[in-house]
C-alpha cells in the first residue's frame, strides 16, 4: 500500500464480498468497477457511494462507508476522504427532498439571495437544516454548471433553472 507504487488497497481484503449489500446493489457497483482497469476498483468509490446514498434514503452512515471500503478493498479512511470532500454526499440524515440552491457568482448576480430568502421563509428552516416534517432539507451548494439558467436549484436529480419566487412555490407544491 502506498501512494507511490500501487493502488491503496487494504492488507486484509474481505474475502466474502457477498456478505455486503444486496445482489442488485453489488451488480450495480460491479458495473462501475468494470469501467476501470483491472486492479483499480477503488476508482468506483464515488459511484458506489452514490448508489448506497440513494439506497439509504439520501445519506451515508459510517457503517455504509466502511462497507463500501470493504467491498472495494480500500482503507476506510480513503472512503471517508472522498465522502467528506464532495458536497453531494450527506453524512447526516436528510429530508425526503434535498433542495440545493446555487449561490455562486452567476446565480448570485441573477438574484439567488432572493431565492434563498424565499425558500427559508417558505420552509421555515435555515440553510443546512431539515424541516420538522422531514420533507425538505435546504442546502447551499457551489456552481452546478447551469449558469445559463441562473438562478438555479437542484432537487433530487432534477435541475430547475431561471427561478423566481413564484416558480419556486410552484415547484415545491408539485412535490409530494
Amino acid at each position, binding site marked *: 500500500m*502506498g501512494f507511490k507504487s500501487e493502488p491503496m488497497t487494504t492488507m486484509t481484503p474481505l474475502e466474502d464480498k457477498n456478505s455486503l449489500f444486496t445482489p442488485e446493489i453489488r451488480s450495480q457497483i460491479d458495473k462501475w468497477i468494470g469501467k476501470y482497469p483491472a486492479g483499480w476498483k477503488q476508482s468506483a468509490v464515488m459511484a458506489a457511494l452514490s448508489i448506497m446514498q440513494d439506497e439509504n434514503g439520501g445519506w451515508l452512515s459510517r457503517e455504509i462507508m466502511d462497507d463500501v471500503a470493504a467491498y472495494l478493498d480500500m482503507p*476506510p479512511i480513503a472512503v471517508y476522504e472522498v465522502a467528506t*470532500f464532495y458536497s453531494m454526499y450527506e453524512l447526516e440524515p436528510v429530508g425526503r427532498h434535498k433542495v440545493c440552491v446555487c449561490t455562486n457568482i452567476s446565480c448570485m448576480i441573477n438574484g439567488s439571495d432572493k431565492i434563498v430568502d424565499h425558500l427559508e421563509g417558505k420552509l421555515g428552516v435555515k440553510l443546512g437544516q431539515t424541516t420538522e416534517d422531514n420533507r425538505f432539507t435546504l442546502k447551499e451548494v457551489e456552481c452546478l454548471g447551469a449558469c445559463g439558467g441562473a438562478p438555479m436549484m437542484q432537487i433530487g436529480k432534477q435541475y430547475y433553472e431561471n427561478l423566481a419566487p413564484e416558480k419556486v412555490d410552484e415547484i415545491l407544491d408539485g412535490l409530494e
Partner: protein
Amino acid sequence: MTEDSMVTIEVDGQELKAKAGAMLIDVADQAGIDIPRFCYHNKLSVSANCRMCLIEVEKVPKPIPACATSVMDGMKVYTKSPMALAAQKGTMEFLLINHPLDCPVCDQGGECELQDQSLAYGSDVARFVEKKRLVPKKYIGPLVETNFNRCIHCTRCVRFSAEIAGMREMGSTGRGEYMKIGTYVERTIDSELSGNLIDICPVGSLTSKPYRYQARAWELTQSDSVAPHDAVGSNIHIHVRNNRVMRVHPKANEAVNECWISDRDRFSYEGLYSEDRLTSPMIKENGRWVETDWETALQQVADGLKEMGAGTGALLSPSATVEELYLAQKLVRSLGSDNIDFRVRQSDFRGGEPALPWLGLGIDEIEAVDAVLVIGANPRKDQPILGHRLRKAALNGASVCYLNPLEYDLNYHAEQLLSAPANMADDLAAVAKAVGATGAIIDDAEVKAQHQSVAEQLKQAGSALVLLGNLASAHPDYSILSALAAEVAKASGAKIGFIGEAANSTGARLVAAMPTDGLNAQSMLEQPCKGYLLLGLEPDRDFWNPTQAQTAFKQAEFVVALTAYRSASLEAAADVLLPMAGFAETSGTYVNGDGTWQSFAGAVQPMGEARPAWKILRVMGNLLDADGFDQNSSQDVLEQARNSADGRQLDNSVTADLGQERRLNGSGLTRIGDVPIYATDALVRRAPALQKTADAISAAIRINPGEAAKAGLADGDRATVIQEGNLATMPVEIDPGVAGGSVRVCAALAGSETLGGQFGEVTLEKA
C-alpha cells in the same frame, strides 16, 4: 533521454551536474542551496501541495515548485529572484492565515520549520483580520499528541502512514476551509513506527506525548548513541537536560535505520526513570535487603566469587555492551569457569547454529533481494526497522514468505505458511525437498502445493534470502530448523541470515561471551551451578524457562546481579545487587546484526550510586587479583575486546545433523511463547507510554476457534495453563492466527513467569 544520463543546470548562477529526471529540490539540497519547503520529504512521495518551494525557472512565465520539477539540460533556476521570493512570501502569508501562532506554548517552538521559515519569509504584520478556524484535537494514542489548529495540511503524516508505516491510518477529510488532517473516526495510530510522525510533522501539530511540556529545544544538549533493543542498532540522538534524558530522536544513517526509528527505540528512555531503579549497592543480610556502600558490596562479591571459583555460572544479557560482555567473560574465565552464556532465550544447544551467525548481508541490502523466506520470526515487531526494509523489498517486487506458528498482521503482501511448532521442521523439510535438497527428514517430507510455491519463488529469484529469527532460535528444535534452512538456502542459491535476538547478540559472540567447553545457558540452569553472576537480566522475565531459572538461583549458594533495576524476582534470587548504569548512562559498543561495530558515549551520569557495568567488572577483576583488569577507559576495554575478536569471522555455515532427535513431537497442545515487542528487556518493560499502546499486550491464552472448542473454552473465559506442573491462570482470547495444535502464551509478560519454557507441551483447564 535515459534515466541515468547526466544534465547540467544552473542554480543561482552555480553550475550543477545532475541525473536527468532528478527533482530540482534534491539537486539543490545536494549542492547546499537552501530552498524552503514543508510538504517535501525525500523518503515520501511528492505531493507539491504546500507551495513553499516555488522558484523561478528561466523561460517559465510563473513560479514552479522545486519539489515537483525535474531537472532538464540547460535549465536556469533562480531560488532567490524577486519572482521566487514574492511567491515564497505569498505562500508563507497564506500558510499563516489559520495558524494560531501559539509558539510560546507549542512544543515545536525553537525547532519548528514553520517558525524558522516565517522568520525568513514571513511578514511582521498579519493582514488577515478575520477569525481563524478552530480544529479540535483528537486522541490518536499514548505516543503522539495532536494539535490540529497548527496544521498546515502538508500531508506528510498521511503519506508517511501509507508509504512507510504501511497502514493508511491518517487522512485528510473535508475540503477547503473544512479540510482536516486526522483519522476521521476516533482511533489510535497503532504502527510500531508511529513516533516518526513527530519528526516528519514540520509544525507543532503532531508532537511527542511523553515529552510534552517537558523542555524547550534550546535547553537540550545532544549526544549520539545507539538504540539498545534490537539487532538493527538504530542510530539515535539523545537529548538531555539537567542530566536527565528528555527524549530520543533518530540520527540519519542510510546503511542502518535511514531517518526512522521504532517507537521502542524512541520511547523506551522513560524506563530509565522508573521507580524500580536500583541506586545503591544492596546486600542481603539474614534475608533482609540493606543498602550498603560499594566497597562492602564489592568485597562481598569478590569473596563470594572466589569461593564459587570454577563453580560460577555467568548469565549475561545480549543487550549488554561489547565492553561489559568482554570483561564479564574475562572475569569468569579468571575464576577457572567456562560457564558463560548470553543465549538466555535459547534451549537447543545441539550445535545447530553456525559458528558466528549474523544477518548474512547488510541491513540496507535487504530491500534489494528478490525473494525472502522468513522462518520463526516477525521482524515487523521484533526488529521494526528490519521489518520496514523487508516491506521495501516486497514493494520493490520481492516475494516474501513466512513460516511461523503464528499468522502475523503484515503491512505488505506475503505468503504465510502457518505451522504448529512441532510441524515447522516438517514444513521446512518439504520446502527443502521442493528446492531439490536431500537428506534425513527431507527425503520423507510430503511436498504440498504451498511448499512448492515457496520453493519456486526462492529458486526463481535472482537473489534470495532465508532468515531465521527470534522464534526459531527459541525453538526446542532450533538445530534442526537451522540445518534445514541451510539446506534450503544451499539448494536454492539463497543466502542464509540469522537475525540476532537482541542489540548485541552478534557482539556477544565476537567477544566470546559463550562457553567453549563449559556449560551453556540451558545446562547452567538444568544442572544448577554453585554460584551465579547475572548481568542485566531479570530471572522472571528474561529466561527461556523462568521457573527453572528462578529455582536454580534460589538453590545457589551465592548470586550476584549487576542490574539497573530491582525487582521481586531479583531480590529473591540474588545475594548482592550491584546498581549498573542503564541505557544512555554508559559508554559502550554494540555490534548489530550485519556486523557493524557502533560505539557511543554516555549521555547522562548514572543515577544515584549506579556505575557503568564495565567499571564494576573491572574493579571486581582487581579485587580478585585477576590479570588484565587495568583499563582506564571503556576505549581501552573496546580495544582489547576488538583484538580478542580479531580471529573470529562472521560465519553462517551450518553443519548440523539433520537426523537429530526431534524434541517437539506434537502430541497435545504446544505452547508458543513468543516475546511481545514491548516486553523484550527490562528498560522497555518499564516505559509507561509504550506499555499503554495496543502492541503492549498482556498475558492471555490465545487460541484458535477450533482448538478453543476442543478445550471447551470461549473468548473471555479464564483458564489455567499447565506446563510441566507449573500453573498460570489468565483470560482466553480467540485468535484465528494461532496454528492448530498450539496455544500462544507469551513469555516475558507479567503472569507468565510461573510457567516453563517458551515452547513445550501444555494442557488447559477452565478456571
